[in-house]
């Protein structure tokens, strides 16, 4: 069929958005760029820790309480274990635990939020009230209860934290999906005969991803601090395990004389929290609000 009128189509703006992505990366500040780089580096570090740690995390490697840079970068602790290796393993544990909790939160919360937001009506109401109930649980107290019931172990603590962590994501995803559901493109898709599942997964979910990713990356810092605080309180892996919070807690008596014993794991927590917060800001600029 021939065209009835001449039409000169203007050139498409940017092939497949590649140019847009490049300008976006340059719009992220240098500090945030470094932080995003550090985030990737920390993840890699956490994975390869067993191969690069100079000493064992649980067995003594030298005499006790050696000063930093006297054969050991971060010195040794009261039983002669290498603090640097312990901090590395601690970072690994904290980091992977934080990612695990966030992943579970995003999955469980995302699914519930998506269903609630896409379905609306009474389903939305019921799911959100359940979410509110979980949201009202006090995290640390639940953790104490779980650990008291099941015994101290990192996995028990993580279970407790996971229980209180997902509602947050359910709320975010549900809010984004609700906002998207009111936009004309949803009506257009419904008119095009798109089924419920595809509507939720293809037309709603992608719109909620940027906000969720940004929140999650900002949340890693939060979670690292929460886990460190719980382990500081003794609600983590039992004694010899290298955990940043517990190391700082047990090292506290040495603060004045052998400061490196509690301070080095503390700096580890600070580093993780700082990197994930800055990287979260960077990701927000990078992904943006659609």
């Amino acid at each position, binding site marked *: 069929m021939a065209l*009835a009128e*001449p039409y*000169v*189509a203007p050139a498409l703006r940017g092939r497949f958005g590649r140019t847009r992505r490049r300008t976006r990366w340059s719009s992220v500040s240098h500090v945030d760029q470094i932080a995003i780089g550090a985030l990737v580096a920390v993840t890699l570090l956490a994975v390869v820790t067993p191969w690069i740690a100079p000493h064992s995390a649980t067995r003594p490697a030298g005499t006790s309480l050696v000063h930093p840079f006297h054969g050991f970068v971060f010195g040794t602790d009261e039983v002669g274990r290498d603090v640097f290796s312990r901090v590395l393993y601690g970072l690994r544990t904290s980091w992977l635990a934080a990612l695990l909790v966030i992943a579970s939160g995003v999955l469980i919360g995302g699914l519930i939020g998506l269903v609630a937001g896409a379905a609306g009506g009474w389903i939305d109401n019921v799911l959100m009230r359940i979410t509110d109930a979980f949201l009202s649980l006090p995290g640390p107290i639940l953790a104490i209860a779980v650990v008291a019931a099941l015994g101290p172990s990192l996995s028990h603590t993580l279970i407790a934290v996971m229980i209180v962590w997902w509602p947050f994501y359910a709320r975010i995803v549900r809010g984004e999906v609700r906002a998207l559901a009111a936009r004309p493109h949803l*009506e*257009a898709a419904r008119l095009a*005969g798109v089924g419920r599942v595809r509507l939720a997964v*293809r037309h709603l979910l992608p719109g909620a991803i940027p906000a969720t990713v940004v929140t999650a990356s900002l949340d890693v810092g939060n979670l690292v601090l929460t886990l460190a605080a719980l382990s500081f309180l003794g609600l983590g892996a039992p004694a010899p395990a290298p955990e940043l919070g517990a190391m700082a807690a047990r090292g506290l008596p040495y603060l004045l004389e052998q400061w490196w014993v509690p301070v080095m794991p503390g700096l580890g927590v600070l580093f993780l929290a700082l990197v994930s917060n800055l990287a979260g800001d960077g990701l927000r600029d990078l992904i943006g609000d659609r």
Partner: protein
Amino acid sequence: MTFTSVQPTEVASPRSPSAPPLVTIEGLHVTFERGGRDVRALRGVDLSIAPGEILGVVGESGSGKSVLGLSMLGLLPTEPPPRLEGSIEVCGVDVVHADDDTRRRLRRRHLGAIFQDPMTSLNPTMRIGRQLAEVAGTEAEAVRLLDAVGVPEPKRRLRSFPHELSGGLRQRVMIAMAVAGEPSLVVADEPTTALDVTVQAQILELLGHLRDELGCSFVLVTHDLGVAAQVSDRIAVLYGGRIAEVGAAADVLERPAHPYTVGLLRSRLTLQARRAGPLPTLIGEPPDPRAHPPGCAFAPRCTLHVDACDETLPDLVSAGGHPGVAACIRLDVPLAEEVALVDAWPEVEAVSAIEPAVRLTAVFKDFELKSGWRSKEVLHALRGVDLEVAEGESVALVGESGCGKSTLLRAIAGLLPIDDGAIALGPGARPQMVFQDAGASLTPWLTVGELIGERLRSEGCGRSERDRRVREALQLVGLPAEVAEAKAVQLSGGQRQRVALARATVVPPEVLLCDEPTSALDVSLAATVLNLLGRLRRELGMAMLFVTHDLGAARVVGDRIAVMYLGRIVEVGPAEEVASAPQHPYTQALLGAVPGVGAAARRTRLEGEPASPLRPPSGCAFHPRCSQAVDACHTDGPELVTLRGSSGHRVACGPAHAAGGWG
């Protein structure tokens, strides 16, 4: 060459044509940097405005018309700072080089501004009275100003918040603020675009009155030549950041010199536009302000284009046909008379006996609105609508905002349940809809190919079959196949509307619903899209229900026109008949309000604004605004009655029925 369709209203010439100009702009360039690229908004503009003059600045989106208005006010966005070259002198102040303080004093003493959406320019947390008093000084002065701009009960209105006023009243308040302190120059940027046509006519009239009373100059920035024609003394046509043509309003409208002005005038939808075939259009789309061609920006769309046009920017030279100036090197070449449009739409067989594509019987729809703690208000969107759209027929549904026309469309599409009545659809494919904002109706993260292909999934098409049909659908709306790989953000406004159309017609529906698909498009694109719709619906044999607020568009698009007021059809009949011999007073007023049509004498100016669907007036809902209302109109809701001897021209109006010829 004459254009009878657009006639400027008689306006007094500028107070003192010999006085030194109030505004002098010379060689103005404004460049913004966005995303690392230069956006050249203005590229050398020379202009002057005399005291007491109304200058219409007309241009499409991206022409730089708003930037021109803002730069006169010294209010260009500052982040990132734009690069300015050239000079702007306003009331003796050099706006380009003055410091912020001087500019602020200039604005306070000599300038006023009116923007498109008064809701965003008025402070929502402050009562009207306090906001006005800030500029007017005293409350008494505020009352006087409100009275001067035609706000009824000005004393009471001082206590209102902006959201409590209707759009028209808000714009009047904004105008009152602009003219407080008797400015020398008021810049009005699209002051009527967000308003209904009947209210638009009132506001334009008000601007003319204020000029006569205050003697201040107005700059009326608009995309619509018809709006500019209503009140302007002079018209400047902007294209691609440069002035294409300037001259007295009557000259520019009747003897346009620049090919762009000619094209704009031809593609305007008027009540005289041809219905039998495609409308004349401008080819292509307005230029991208990030990548202007080195020569004349209009060259790629120009019928007079020669190679020299691409080499240098044309200067403003005497227009020849009138005392104004135009920027074109081919002014000596006579533009071809309006191309004899021989191609007419194919005759569509009158389908009578078979089931209609859509039959609405007494459709009612209410919405419940929360109006405070535990209290609800009921919005009566549809109050008994009867309408039929025959197979293959096109019906244009006309009405102002809030009349329920979009609700009706969404109900037919099955997106809204109705409260009462019946919607019967023909046996063909499900209705499809083309939305006003095509960009928003396309899911931003999916490609065009996926979006169009989705409709084929339910038909069980395989992947290669889908790809083939997507390509065909794109070709049918005049888009290249590679658009299938693009996402909505990569497309221009016109392309998005075409994609939306391709999506709606890849499986041709029995009835295509169009919700003001051209009102967000530039003037030169609207005609192209209407042509496309006209061709598609005939080729694919679709019925069409086309919602619009513009009677001009309705007349061209529809075989029949239905006029809606406050949730009811008040008049329906053959398009030409309704447009030329309207029977309902509301239709008559709508026709009178179409900008740029007919002489001032013929106008029936409609007072007031559409009544609220929260509290529809008793009897005939139109009676509070109707000049012909009699006592019975207050109590009796008239039914649609057929005009005797007509082919289905029906009107719901008591006095008209009483006049005879009905039944």
